[in-house]
């Protein structure tokens, strides 16, 4: 069973819909026990960092998520929440990745919305990807760092995906990235 972590606000349903299309059973939950016993965990993301971390702390999940041993996938804001700190609402995050989440500079079109190609793809998430265009929607980014496993170029190069041990995370939305996104989700599910 796959646990999709619920923390208010976001559109958790779209991740579940994508898993349904792949024929995989999932539960949307904020229950620590269910999350800990799940085969895999997805931390989805739509919303703002401050409110999201507030909900995660309220449910005691800030102690649970960083210690999970099964494969975990953070998506978009979910990826940013797995980092140490976000400039969005000046938020202390979960600290799995030793990275700071930064706002795109002024003077450009922000949010970065739309399909952009990912580059320098490494490791397991990106096998068998034909088209490297994936769907992004974000105003904050994770700089390229030692945990980066895919990059993207918008205004500057940034992390399209990061990985550390059992934690995987994508800035783009695989659940909204057409066939490419489906393959990436499949790759995660097969880990």
């Amino acid at each position, binding site marked *: 069973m796959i646990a999709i972590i619920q923390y208010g606000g976001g*559109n958790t349903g779209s991740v579940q819909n994508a898993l349904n299309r792949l024929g995989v059973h999932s539960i949307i939950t904020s229950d620590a026990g269910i999350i800990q016993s799940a085969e895999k965990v997805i931390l989805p993301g739509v919303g703002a960092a401050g409110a999201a971390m507030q909900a995660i702390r309220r449910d005691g999940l800030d102690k649970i998520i960083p210690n999970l041993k099964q494969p975990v996938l953070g998506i978009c804001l979910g990826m940013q929440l797995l980092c140490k700190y976000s400039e969005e609402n000046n938020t202390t995050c979960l600290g799995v990745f030793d990275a700071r989440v930064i706002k795109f500079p002024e003077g450009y079109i*922000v949010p970065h919305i*739309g399909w952009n190609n990912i580059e320098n793809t490494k490791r397991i998430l990106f096998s068998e990807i034909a088209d490297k265009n994936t769907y992004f929607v974000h105003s904050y980014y994770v700089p390229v760092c030692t945990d980066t496993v895919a990059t993207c170029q918008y205004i500057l190069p940034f992390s399209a995906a990061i990985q550390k041990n059992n934690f995987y995370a994508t800035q783009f939305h695989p659940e909204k990235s057409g066939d490419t996104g489906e393959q990436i989700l499949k790759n995660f599910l097969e880990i």
Partner: protein
Amino acid sequence: MLKKRIIPCLDIKDGRTVKGTQFVDLKDAGDPIALAQKYAAQGADELVFLDITATIENRKTLVELVKKIAASINIPFTVGGGIRTLEDAALLIRSGADKISINSAAYNNPELIKEIANHFGSQCVVVAIDAKYIDNSWNVFTNGGRTDTGCNIIAWAKKAADQGAGEILLTSMDNDGARSGFAIEPVNEVCNAVSIPVIASGGAGCKEDFYALFQNSNASAALAAGIFHYDQLQIPRLKEYLKTNQIPIR
């Protein structure tokens, strides 16, 4: 490189897709789910669904439709029409809409933009502006294109962006359904005034119109309806043409 987006728009009335000319004279254009799936398979970059009746009785039908769309397509989609409160927006977002589009309600109550953005993030708030050229000014029209606010689109677009809009969807009412090309001038006016993406809408009649838009403006996306519904222009052909002409396209 970030790609320019091609966005088919489906106007929804009583659960069916319809298409009119200059906002009136509606014709049936098919089942929205079937069309949505077709467009997604053809390489549409996003979809927009506008509930043009947007009465309270129709809300339930719309929510059910949104759930079905979310279950059956794997690209982002926006839902608009009749969203007046944070609760209206929340219901659609929780039913699976990636973004909501607000028009008259945002103009009449700009705080609504901030409320939705604070709750769900700016990225899911599209502010739709219907524009018509009146006495040397592109004016904002509300109420389904029936009311001239007398306000210039620049002033309103700036305010909407300041309130936390994630994107502007700019429709030229003069061009809508006329198939004579996009109105480039107001698109450029708005692009120059705000630093959020602008989606241009109204007037697409042939593939060259999309090229002219992307070549001559900073529009992030082009939205069209009728031209796709009746298969006059197929999305793969359009995208191939734009790629050949060096427009960044997925």
